[in-house]
């Protein structure tokens, strides 16, 4: 059969980063191709090139044997290529019909169009409530409206970007059913995902990407999950341990130390019904570094927020030492000596319009060391900031400058220095090395090790697996809001971790 889509040697670079390297692909009608890969493997970049959000640096795309240039998402729609993003582009105040017909000329919006929408719904067994505005629909129904929007525009290629990640567990099976119908009518569906069990269920072939390269396009039925996982993690020799034990210093025997943090049976359910955290159990000892590995968006950020008080869990308890803190406010937890390096330092960890010295103080401004009597001591703040700027070699070394004047690495140092100095019992760090160069990464890691040595328990959450394995005493792997396993870095392989990271909830139970 003549391929519908032919992608030849697509390349795309962003600055120094090669996001797509010589990507080739042949795909036919009526096929479902899963795209599997870690964060930053190039999955979304490839999709963006196909729908015209990015222009490739080189290479070409052929549709039905003729070369096409997808210069914009509108052009993509003209060529019959549509994409459903993780974040829907629907107008909340409008009904499903109005959303589907949005932007079309008047003559295409009449009764015939409305009849066709209902026909499409019937064809694909989509349940859509046509009487209510989209804002009051459940996520699954919104997603169906998005898909109908694409189908109404006669797409022959549909790209779904992690479509099940936003769905409640009960919505997944009907959704996959719908996709299957789409494929049966001759649509070519790309299914971007990192959930191996779903890929197994829905896809004909799986395209595995790593660092912008296609590691393989394999038939799903005949490829074992372990092979997919190994290709995704970039490890061909599956038996090699993740780390050579002799390169690692002797770790302290953490089980003997006092328990610093006990998270028991913590669950978090979003208002949409999606289960973000599910029965999470964790124990963290004083002086221990516990890594949390997992693919982005599997509940790690929310776990950090539940522990530090930014979000409140739906059920379960959290003990800091012997003290129950589940109901404490953020301020109370700050006072209890919990340090927190949040993922988004610009939006959360720093106030860019304040000076560097004020950034050292803002998280606990009422604390004695920043005060003189009941008033803020600007002099004390300057002194503390100057010391930290010297100790952490923050540049430029003028603490009166606005935080926005500093580079990302130096900004991260401010957050880290502040939280390390504040953490007496527990330090929670999320993606502390994101966007840092090798030297800065090393520095951050050293500081975290030092604070652990001083007896503070550290929860190290990161999607950069090498860093997690390098620094942690133990590593807990999260997938779909659950802890799918706890391993020690010395005795585990990347492949094991890859399987845990993509394990479906059923396998864990």
């Amino acid at each position: 059969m003549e391929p519908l889509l032919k992608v030849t040697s697509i390349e795309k670079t962003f600055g120094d980063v090669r996001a797509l390297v010589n990507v080739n692909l042949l795909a036919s009608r009526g096929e479902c191709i899963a795209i599997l890969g870690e964060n930053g493997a190039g999955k979304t970049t490839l999709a963006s090139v196909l729908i015209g959000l990015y222009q490739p640096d080189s290479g070409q795309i052929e549709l039905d044997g003729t070369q096409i240039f997808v210069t914009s998402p509108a052009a993509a729609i003209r060529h019959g290529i549509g994409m459903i993003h993780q974040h829907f582009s629907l107008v909340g105040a409008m009904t499903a019909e109005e959303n589907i017909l949005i932007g079309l000329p008047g003559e295409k919006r009449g009764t015939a169009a409305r009849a066709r929408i209902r026909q499409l719904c019937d064809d694909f067994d989509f349940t859509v409530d046509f009487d209510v505005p989209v804002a009051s629909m459940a996520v699954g129904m919104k997603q169906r409206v998005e898909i109908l929007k694409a189908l109404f525009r006669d797409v022959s290629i549909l790209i779904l970007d992690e479509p099940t990640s936003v769905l409640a567990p009960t919505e997944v099976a009907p959704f996959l059913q719908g996709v299957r119908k789409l494929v049966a009518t001759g649509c070519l569906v790309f299914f971007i995902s990192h959930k191996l069990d779903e890929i197994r269920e829905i896809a004909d072939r799986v395209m595995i990407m790593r660092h912008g390269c296609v590691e393989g396009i394999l038939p799903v039925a005949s490829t074992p999950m372990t092979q997919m996982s190994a290709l995704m993690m970039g490890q061909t020799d599956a038996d090699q341990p993740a780390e050579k034990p002799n390169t690692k210093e002797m770790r302290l025997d953490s089980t003997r130390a006092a328990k610093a943090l006990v998270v028991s049976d913590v669950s978090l359910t979003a208002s949409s019904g999606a289960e973000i955290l599910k029965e999470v159990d964790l124990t963290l000892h004083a002086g221990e570094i516990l890594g949390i590995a997992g693919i982005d968006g599997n509940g790690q950020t929310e776990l950090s927020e539940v522990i530090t008080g930014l979000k409140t869990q739906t059920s379960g308890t959290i003990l800091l030492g012997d003290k129950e803190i589940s109901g404490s406010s953020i301020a109370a937890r700050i006072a209890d000596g919990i340090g927190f390096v949040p993922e988004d330092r610009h939006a959360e960890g720093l106030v860019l319009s304040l000076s560097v010295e004020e950034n050292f103080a803002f998280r606990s401004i009422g604390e004695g060391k920043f005060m003189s009597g009941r008033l803020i001591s600007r002099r004390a703040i300057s002194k503390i900031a100057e010391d930290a700027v010297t100790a952490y070699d923050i540049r430029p070394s003028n603490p009166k400058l606005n935080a926005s004047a500093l580079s990302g690495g130096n900004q991260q140092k401010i957050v880290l220095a502040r939280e390390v100095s504040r953490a007496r019992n527990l330090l929670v760090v999320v993606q502390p090395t994101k966007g840092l160069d090798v030297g800065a990464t090393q520095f951050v890691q050293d500081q975290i090790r030092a604070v652990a040595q001083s007896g503070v328990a550290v929860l190290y959450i990161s999607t950069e697996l090498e860093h997690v394995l390098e620094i942690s005493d133990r590593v807990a792997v999260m997938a779909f809001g659950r802890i799918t396993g706890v391993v020690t870095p010395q005795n585990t392989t990347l492949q094991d971790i890859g399987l845990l990271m993509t394990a479906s909830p059923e396998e864990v139970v």
Partner: protein
Amino acid sequence: MNSVTMQCRVAAALLMALTVGGFLILFDGHNPFEAYKVLFFDSFLNYWGFSNTLVKASPMLLAGLAVIIPMRAGVFNIGGEGQIYIGGLFGTVFALAVPDLPAVLGVPLIFLAAAIGGTFWAAIPAYLKAYRGTNEVIVTLLMNFVAIHIVSYAVAGPLLAEGAPYPYSDEVAEAYRLPIVMPRSDAHAGFVFGLAMALILYFWLRFTPSGFQLDLVGRNARAAAYAGVDEKKTIIRAMLIGGSLAGMAGAIEVIGLKYRLFHLFSDGYGYDGIVVAFLAALNPIVAPLTALFLAGLSAGAGTMQRAIGVDSSVIEVVEGLVVVFVAAALVAPRNSSKSILKNLLIGGLFGHPKHNKKKEA
């Protein structure tokens, strides 16, 4: 953006507004330098003119602070005008109901009553904003009209003075009237009170944890939450403070200037407060200066019209231009400006050196 950069940008914006206004005067067939000279000479260097400036500056200053404090918490209080009216009403009602107290007790209580009135009027949009997510700009703006009409009703009905030819209340007791700071003029102590408030608020924002945290919410609400600050309570607190300040401005108009509650007694001072606040780059300590400047513009406009023949509405245009230019200067991102004019005038000539360096890099 540090405060030095902000002040420089504001100064540049001000100059641009006056320049454009100057062209308008020129097109009107007059010499702009002459016109501005007459205007500023009259408002600031002439005894009677300056007293007039002070009279206008005192409600403008308090109304400006009533915008600054909520704005520092990220909430836009357009409702100063309504809060002035309700504050004036509460203050007058108290003053008329309890006419026999000594001044040291009565005047503070009138201020308190007015502050309660303004606070109450600001509490409604504050609650709606914090707990219902309702846009405070719309609610505060619309509540202004309600407040104005409530006062009109009050002075035309229950508070109407006996035999009054048009709607106003009885006079407040002489003991309650604010002292005059410039002899034989109308210039009362209201501006001094505003000045004290500006100092207190500046100090509060800079040197107390609660003030610092209010500012934090406006700068970065997520970071404030991360620092354990309750955003909703802070928003409400900021709006209530704003409402009380505007409410006291209403009392000052009554016991400082007119000694009665008139209908339509505030001549848009609540809205002037927005200009004062922006001109001051939201810094309370600068607000007295910007209130004086704006009051001077409006006090001198009449003289300019009489002496030179320039229509005083030109000054209203200048006030409007000040808002536009200052708002543009404050929101312009530091290094994404594409406009050559903006780079040249705001970045190049008046910008902070650091901000320029960053642009080159």
